[in-house]
């Protein structure tokens, strides 16, 4: 009997797709099952067609999959879009109030269709104060029965969720849930499925939640942002903690403001961050240079979406590495990209440490899928988070004038917090000497200013080498059989889909392994090249057209990856998609050889 399955829930925005997903996700996570849910939604608040696909299993889930086994359809747009995808032998529950039986059932003969007539069913038991949108709770009942999940757990969650609205609301939701559950029990055949959880509740959260929690665990005290999908969830989560955890969380007038607020806060001496999507990041780039030049620690979250310009706000793309590497002039920075929910938590905390240790801007790159998808994690271990503030001090006892930008062996200068008696100084965006005096205006071009330009620029850029020497910038990680014929090269959320693809390939007797980049800049050249040498055939897998990671690798190491699997239609990869693309590459290769 299978121990995993895939569920899809589809309808119009406003149909309650999200809350049905939450009901299912929480039921599973509280039972100790693993889930991974992908939201395919549009940039519309009501009316657009949206769906959510959730993989559920006893083991950790890496792939939301292609073919759903159980499907809930809410509106009349749904059947044509989703019925063709259903796994043969699968089950479709639909809202018989808006979808015609003849129309949907004519679409497939190898799928079981069950229409639930919400109005008739609630009228039959004389339920009052019922809103038609509550069909989502009824369909959730059908789902819980079909998947043989623990209805007690769902009812408990309904109570937690609706109790603040009153006992009556809870009772009504329970009644409607039970209607769906009992009807399904009486009228349908359950799936041959054994979803067994360990009954230890897991966390069920999004990537943006995990990033926010990682920042707060890492000592974040200040977050300024301007709303932009798919980064807004971070602002939402951190905002909920503003009072309880005494954080300054500000929605400001634009992204120019957001990054500069964070720089001001970072210079004052708090751990500060901002977050946005690619378009907003474009506005922030000058501020990034300011942080680097003034040597103010700063963390910027860059959540990539389909681009360019306004692009496709609610779809995935991984094409912003050159943007994160951008800005006028040359300056040090650190770029890292978490790979899954746990990593979102730990890397966010790590970003804050690196920013303060090197007094540089750190860019944490996420993507639409990683930030917006929901899934389970066993635990996030706060005790692993160490807060290291580098050369920050609140004491200055020397009689000498304090030099904010003192030349030091490692290029990092002792940083006295403003407010400390005796160490008054200025941080500046112009080129400057050790004291922060400008070398850009009346001094520019004079011998001492040229010397300062050479030395100060080298001092800052030396931090990049130092990140590598200190081992803070890590090479990619090679996972799987070292002798494999094929190596997939990835970054960001694509990590999980390679995991899934490797399982599928193994079943076909193909051995593949996986080289995954978390640190995108700087790249430790020698260690990375040594890893490439171990691999027989390298194929990059990126959600873009122009191979952003490969270009970065080429620039930083001189090594060129020549085979690529790309996807830029806005949907995330799946294991199956990657396997198919690999097969296509094989055919192409054979054709080339035969020519």
């Amino acid at each position, binding site marked *: 009997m299978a121990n995993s399955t895939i569920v899809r829930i589809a309808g119009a925005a406003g149909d309650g797709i999200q809350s049905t997903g939450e009901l299912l996700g929480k039921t599973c996570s509280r039972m100790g099952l693993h889930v991974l849910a992908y939201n395919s939604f549009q940039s519309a608040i009501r009316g657009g067609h949206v769906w959510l696909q959730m993989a559920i299993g006893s083991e950790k889930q890496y792939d939301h999959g292609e073919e759903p086994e159980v499907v809930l359809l809410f509106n009349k747009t749904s059947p044509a879009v989703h019925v063709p995808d259903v796994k043969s032998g699968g089950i479709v529950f639909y809202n018989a109030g808006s979808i015609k039986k003849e129309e949907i059932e004519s679409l497939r003969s190898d799928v079981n269709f069950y229409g639930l007539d919400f109005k008739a069913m609630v009228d039959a038991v004389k339920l009052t104060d019922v809103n038609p949108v509550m069909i989502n709770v009824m369909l959730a009942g059908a789902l819980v029965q079909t998947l043989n999940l623990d209805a007690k757990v769902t009812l408990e969650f309904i109570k937690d969720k609706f109790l603040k609205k009153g006992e009556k609301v809870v009772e009504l939701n329970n009644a409607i849930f039970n209607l769906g559950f009992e009807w399904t029990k009486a009228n349908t055949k359950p799936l041959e499925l054994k979803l067994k959880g360990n009954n230890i509740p897991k966390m*069920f959260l999004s990537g943006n939640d995990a990033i926010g929690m990682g920042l707060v665990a890492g000592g974040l005290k200040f977050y300024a942002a301007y709303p932009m999908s798919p980064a807004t969830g971070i602002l939402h989560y951190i905002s909920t903690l503003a009072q309880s*955890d005494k954080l300054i969380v500000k929605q400001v007038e634009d992204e120019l403001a957001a990054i500069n607020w964070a720089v001001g806060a970072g210079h004052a001496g708090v751990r500060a961050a901002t977050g946005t999507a690619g378009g907003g990041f474009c506005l922030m780039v000058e501020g990034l240079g300011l942080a680097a030049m003034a040597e103010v620690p700063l963390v910027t979250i860059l959540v990539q979406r389909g681009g360019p310009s306004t692009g496709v706000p609610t779809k995935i793309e991984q094409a912003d590495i050159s943007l994160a590497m951008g800005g006028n002039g040359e300056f040090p920075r650190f770029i890292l990209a978490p790979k899954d929910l746990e990593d979102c938590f730990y890397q966010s905390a790590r970003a804050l440490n690196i920013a303060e240790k090197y007094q540089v801007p750190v860019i944490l790159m996420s993507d639409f899928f990683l930030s917006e998808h929901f899934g389970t994690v066993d635990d996030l271990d706060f005790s692993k988070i160490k807060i290291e503030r580098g050369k920050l001090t609140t004491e200055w006892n020397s009689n000498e004038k304090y030099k904010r930008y003192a030349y030091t062996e490692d290029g990092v200068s002792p940083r006295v917090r403003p407010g400390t008696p005796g160490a008054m100084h200025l*941080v500046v965006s112009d080129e400057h000497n050790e004291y922060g005096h400008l070398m850009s205006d009346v001094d520019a071009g004079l011998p001492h200013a040229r010397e300062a330009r050479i030395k100060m620029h080298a001092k800052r850029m030396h931090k990049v080498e130092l990140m590598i020497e200190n081992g803070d910038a890590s090479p990619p990680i090679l996972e799987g059989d070292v002798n494999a014929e094929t190596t997939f090269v990835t970054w960001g959320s694509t990590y999980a889909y390679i995991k899934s693809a490797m399982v599928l390939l193994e079943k076909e007797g193909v051995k593949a392994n996986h080289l995954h980049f978390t640190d995108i800049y700087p790249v430790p050249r020698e260690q990375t090249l040594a890893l490439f040498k171990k691999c027989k055939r390298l194929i990059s897998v990126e959600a873009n057209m122009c191979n952003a990671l490969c270009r970065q690798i080429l620039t930083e190491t001189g090594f060129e990856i020549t085979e690529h699997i790309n996807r830029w239609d806005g949907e995330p990869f799946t294991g199956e998609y990657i396997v198919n693309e690999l097969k296509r590459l094989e055919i192409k290769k054979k054709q080339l050889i035969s020519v």
Partner: protein
Amino acid sequence: MTANIIDRKDRPALDPKDFKGDVHPDWCPGCGDFGVLNCLQRAFAELGIPQHEIAVISGIGCSSNLPGFINTYGMHTLHGRSLPNAQGFKLSHHDMTVVAVGGDGDGYGIGVGHFIHALRRNIDLTYIVMNNSIYGLTTGQTSPTSALGMKTKSTPFGNPEAPLNPLTLALGSGAGFVSRVFTGNPKQVIEVYKAAIKHKGFALIDTFSPCVTFNKINTAKFYKDTTYDLNAKGHDTSDIKAAFAVAMKTPDGSEPIATGIFYQSERPCYEESEKDTLSIPVVDHQLGISPQRAKELKAKFK
């Protein structure tokens, strides 16, 4: 230090010399900005605020070089971004005195979006705009406060745009302290700067600071001949209608130009809304999450 949201107590005066920076200003001889620097140093000294409790934060432009010439903490940031940096700094370390400075191009041109939001937000900081109605550092182009018809390098046939009025903009955006001074009257400048720094909330001091090199119209002589002290004439600074009436007049010299405090009223400053978080400066908060709190944070997702 005591929390500024409560009150700034008068302290013994300090020596203005102690506020002199290491670097001598590189402004043109005769630039109005010397007057601003001098008056600001005197205002700090007379209020008795120690140097290390002050941050002077600027954008980019001739006048934005000011933080380099004063012995306090400070930031010299990007063009137009003094206020975002200053607000971020202030909320992080709210018991420091934060003064944002810059020019009319910096504050009323490229940074005007931030200006309006700072006005309505009302964080307790002081904003000195050295207004010379010209872009000086880029060698003489039109500015948001250049007069209609003014010939500059970028408007050789005369400026076709009406000037922005910073005072009515501030009054209309909820500012609690709106003032204008002229550097040729240092006594008044010092008094208004002191009042602005002591004001709880956002305080604007639009400061006529003539450019001797690129603006031959709005000269020191022009302002000396046309300005008068509004506060010496019995103006009621609590009357916003009276403030608007005076502020609406275009300062083109066709009639006397008012200077002084136009309007002052204390509405709760932004910091009042974060009293709990700001019970001690955020920079002094203990970092990290306790094991108990970590459990609670995780439980919310279970």
